[in-house]
């Protein structure tokens, strides 16, 4: 999986700028992030990482029957 091109995040930039501007004017106050922005950004990141997530899952959950039958004493 190639590294994400940040140029492809232009859609998010346009939506994020008003949120950060609002948070700067009200420090310590929680500013809601538009659902469209968080959903799309999450989707980009999740899709980019999907192969790694599946590979880790496969690796960690695959203990062979042969291994399970090894004896310790």
């Amino acid at each position, binding site marked *: 999986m190639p590294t994400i091109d940040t140029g492809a995040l232009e859609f998010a930039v346009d939506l994020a700028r008003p949120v950060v501007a609002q948070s700067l004017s009200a420090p310590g106050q929680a500013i809601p992030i538009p659902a469209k922005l968080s959903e799309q950004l*999450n989707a980009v990141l999740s899709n980019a990482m999907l192969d*790694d997530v599946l590979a880790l899952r496969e690796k960690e959950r695959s203990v062979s029957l042969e291994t399970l039958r090894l004896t310790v004493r």
Partner: protein
Amino acid sequence: MSLRYRFIDLASIADESELLGAIAPPASGMQAFALMGQPLSPFKHVVQHLRKIGAQTLLIQDSVRDPDFLAEHEAFYSKQHRVIPRLCWRLHAFAAAAPIVEKGKELTARAVLDFLDTVADPDRQYLGFVTIRPLRHAPIGASILPPPHLGDVTCLERFPVHIAGRAFYVSGTPYLQQDNAVGACAQASIWIALRTQMKRVGNTAYTPAELTRAATRYMAFDRVYPGRQGLVIEQMLEAIRSSGHDPLTLTCEHGVPGGAPITAAYVIEQAMPYIESGLPVVATLFPPSGGHAVVCIGRQYAARPIVDTTRDLKPLGIRYRVAADWIETLVIHNDNTGPYLTLGSGDPKSNVYCLEHARNLIIPLPETVHMTAKEAEQASLKAIAFSCFFFSQYDSTKPPRLKPETDIVLRTLLVRRHAFRRWALEDAELDPALKDLYRTLELPRLIWFVELHDAQLYDPRNPNTCSRIGEIVLDASADSLHGDVTLSARLSRHTLPSYSGPQGILLLDGGIEAEQLLALSSGVPGKSLAIPWE
């Protein structure tokens, strides 16, 4: 009625055989047994450990009905023709000197009680207990001794010990030697791991006999008693499952099974997050002499990283390394050699136990931990990218960014929510608004807590080092594939020093509401979370 207490001045005892002779009466036959060979190695190591932690006096308690040995006795020893006693001795270790008994006079109950009632600073002077079973080949029964270096051992608990109406306390990891009849190393290891967690998780105190029955309930390859043939890993998992825990089994093979050789660094990296969380890790070792199980209960840090496992998470471009790089050896309880020993890198062709012999790690997780430590680490990287993007948006002169500019170290641990809130309350460096939020945030019972440290500042040997420049809080009960795992993510400005913006930001999961962004007024580096359990 004879007094069931005696004192032994440990300093006056030259060797282990003399001590065993002083504890057990001649009729027991234990004195005649030569103190040599593998079975009595734990006894020797226990005595050496007592000396190392500063024990001066042993208060010997006779006729002890030890619940673990009573269960072993009922399961096996009571069925033998020759009478095997069912009572044990218990050695209580004190750093204080024993009372002097005049020559020709006998020790009185009053002298014992005066000693117990007047021990100064009992929390420091009481050094735990050792149960001596009436078994010549396996004398060490359920015992709790403090570790030699408290900071190295993370899997320990504070246990009350009652002697003659007085309550003393010992902080340590329970230890037991296999008796090679009711249980082998597998049961001893599981017993150690479960007994350590008993108070925290609230599980039942399973005896080795009960663990053997649970392990062989559905699958037995040989006779159950005497259980000299050990257990297969599948049976160990069944025994752990029956205790209400959810055993996670991890492989120590780095690449494809049977591919690249097992490395010490990889074993440490797999085990470290759980050990750091105070969760004992049962390691199955396979030296040429045959399989064996030990329990990893701590770790020893080096001044500098032992290995460099810096990696690049390609899709996000994040370069990071893990805190395990600083770990040199693991601290283990080995039921056939002794408590609080070290397990480091070595020659896998030798029979001397080393990390390269590890084939599997078994972690008896509490229920509802659905995400593994590595999955949590992976999810935290996504949260870091998400947060970096927002942080970079404060500087309109620069392009968006998904990765920190600083070299980062990740430290991952499972934390109980009460411990997290206590940490937030007590952490002096946390931003005040963040402190309030962390203390009032709705959280699951257990969370994965992933700390981001500045690699240049990180020094795990010094708990007062302020190198934490962010932290990700994840729902341990979530499924990483589903996606909704991040509860909060904070980054300090140290992660993007060339970008202008606030001192730090926090991204909060809004649950059914929208996610939220906070600009923070403080971003000074903080300390690591030290106590994951309350």
